[in-house]
């Protein structure tokens, strides 16, 4: 490669749409994922706002019950399969894992591009149900049998879309595992890897091992619908609880596919903005593996009211409590990292703090649901919806936004308006809690989920929740608008390490990085990735 080519950053090397959609550069693929994910996220968020609008008052306001059922199904399918599962690994994992490991790309760049194309094909299939066939599925994103076998809506296409999307997830996971094992820069042992890489490593194993199970399960739904083979439908000899087992064997570990990368992001943000080493590096690294491992054995807590055996319910409840231990270890270490740190309050740190606050509420309400006796009362109420959104949106969503603000100057070589970013965070934070906390309250009062109507006594919390959804929408638009406006700002201002305290390898290279990621050999800190006492000197 010529020196001129080396000096060009990855955005300048080639121009035109084809240089993007057929690029095998991990950075461009990461951005392809980012733009696709944000598009689908906005579609999903719009559906969410529409659902809240219907629930502003009791009774029918905007939609028929059937339409409402289809909207919440589409909202779930889009947000889970098209946004939150791929989110952090596909965008920030693709972009930053090779750079953080000090290498030039992932192990299988072409497979990486293929995974994006498969993702797009799956997304088109999922969205096509809006136009073709008998309308989108009305089953909820879980596609529970036997209803999913019998409903006249377009379940087959939705299920096939989820099946196809699974391949994208598997390929990304496979790529990351091999990259981490084989392409770490010399001197970077496993215990000198950044914690984001550890989190992606644990996540990738789940993607690789759990996703095929849901793939087969979803194909079984198609087989049941098309050929009537009698796997899940009791009227022809099937077992509906078997479906729930197979579905949750994947879908509970999938919760950790969504959450673990977010933990990795927080473990990067806190040392940078506390200007001190992470507390309990090994504990955080190994707790990621522990969560991934124990997370495989707890799927039954989604099925406490399904009619499964009492013995199994007790076993699953006990196992569920075990997951809380490694998760609590992480939270303890994050808070300890902040203690006596030289804290620099920047927008990414606000998102990290918002994450910890909201994830704690989400996590602790999860412990309530893991308790067998409590779950019997709370199952299928709005408490579960509130809990889930606190973990997924308040947790992973906020970590995603935090990462976007953190790595924005590195990805695009520009900087957004920090004051607007701070304001957008607070709007989002207030709106989020107004939107989802009343759901927990109304759930405790007994309001069931997945109904377009409710009793008058649930009116006030629902009204507050809908107001909250509008505030969230304003916060999201302001945040995204501010980031987009940042593209117009001067590029020259961005140095290699714009936060001044970034210590992992991506802060040693140019902003944006060159095509081969580094213009000179990266230098590892002496004593692990967060050795703030012996930081390598970074010259521009």
């Amino acid at each position, binding site marked *: 490669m010529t020196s001129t080519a080396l000096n060009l950053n990855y955005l300048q090397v080639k121009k035109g749409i084809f240089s993007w959609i057929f690029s095998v550069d991990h950075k461009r693929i990461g951005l392809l994922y980012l733009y696709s994910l944000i598009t689908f996220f906005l579609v999903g968020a719009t559906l969410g706002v529409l659902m809240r609008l219907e629930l502003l008052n009791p009774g029918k306001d905007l939609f028929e019950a059937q339409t409402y059922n289809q909207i919440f199904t589409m909202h779930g399918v889009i947000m889970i399969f098209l946004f939150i599962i791929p989110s952090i690994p596909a965008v920030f994992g693709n972009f930053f894992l090779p750079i953080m490991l*000090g*290498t*030039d790309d992932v192990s299988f760049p072409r497979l990486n591009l293929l995974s994006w194309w498969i993702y797009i094909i799956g997304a088109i299939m999922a969205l096509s149900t809006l136009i073709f066939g008998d309308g989108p599925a009305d089953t909820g994103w879980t596609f529970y049998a036997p209803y999913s076998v019998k409903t006249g809506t377009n379940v087959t296409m939705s299920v096939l879309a989820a099946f196809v999307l699974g391949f994208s997830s598997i390929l990304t996971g496979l790529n990351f595992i091999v990259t981490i094992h*084989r*392409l*770490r*820069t*010399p001197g970077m042992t496993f215990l000198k890897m950044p914690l984001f890489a550890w989190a992606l490593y644990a996540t990738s194993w789940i993607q690789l*091992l759990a996703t095929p*199970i849901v793939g087969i399960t979803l194909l079984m739904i198609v087989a049941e619908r098309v050929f009537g083979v009698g796997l899940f439908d009791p009227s022809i000899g099937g077992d509906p*609880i*078997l479906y729930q*087992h197979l579905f949750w*064997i994947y879908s509970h570990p999938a919760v950790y596919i969504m959450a673990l990368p977010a933990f990795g992001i927080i473990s990067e943000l806190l040392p940078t903005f506390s200007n001190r080493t992470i507390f309990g590096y090994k504990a955080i690294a190994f707790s990621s593996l522990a969560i991934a491992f124990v997370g*495989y*054995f707890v799927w*039954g807590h989604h099925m406490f009211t399904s*009619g*499964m*055996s*009492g*013995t*199994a319910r007790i*076993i699953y409840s006990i196992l569920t409590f075990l997951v809380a231990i490694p998760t609590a270890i992480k939270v303890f270490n994050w808070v300890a990292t902040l203690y006596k740190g030289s804290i620099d309050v920047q927008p990414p740190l606000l998102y990290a703090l918002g994450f910890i606050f909201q994830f704690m509420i989400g996590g602790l309400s999860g412990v309530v649901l893991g308790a067998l006796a409590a779950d019997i009362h709370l199952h299928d109420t709005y408490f579960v919806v509130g809990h889930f959104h606190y973990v997924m949106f308040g947790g992973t969503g906020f970590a995603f936004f935090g990462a976007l603000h953190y790595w924005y100057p590195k990805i695009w070589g520009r900087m957004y308006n920090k004051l607007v970013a701070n304001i957008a965070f607070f709007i989002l934070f207030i709106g989020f809690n107004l939107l989802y906390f009343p759901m927990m309250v109304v759930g405790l009062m007994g309001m069931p989920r997945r109904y377009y109507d409710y009793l008058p006594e649930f009116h006030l919390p629902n009204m507050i929740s809908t107001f909250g959804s509008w505030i969230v929408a304003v916060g999201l638009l302001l945040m995204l608008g501010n980031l987009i406006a940042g593209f117009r700002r001067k590029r020259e201002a961005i140095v290699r390490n714009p936060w001044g305290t970034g210590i992992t390898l991506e802060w040693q290279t140019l902003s944006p990085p060159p095509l*081969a*990621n*580094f213009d000179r*050999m990266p230098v590892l800190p002496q004593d692990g990735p967060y050795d703030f006492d012996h930081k390598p000197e970074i010259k521009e």
Partner: protein
Amino acid sequence: MSHTKDNLHKEEQVHITSYKDHFSTLIALLLLTVITVVISVFGANLRSLSVFTALLIATVKVIVVAYYFMHLKYDKKIYTWLVLIVAILFVSFAVLTSIEYLNR
């Protein structure tokens, strides 16, 4: 960066599997297949044990394939452990689901 890939090649240990090993593995797999067929045809009196027997033979075949044809024998021990963990996970799924089903 390309330097990491160069180092990677240096780290890899070259091994050549003999024809004898390959051929012995093939014979073992063929024999196990014959045993599976014979049991399915003539072992009707095994009743519920027939499924167990078929799974046992299949497991042995998987181990032989992974060990010789897929080079687990010659690779680092960590990869053997990874395969074992996957196997443990799979068995756990089956056991936990069966506990639920049998106690319903």
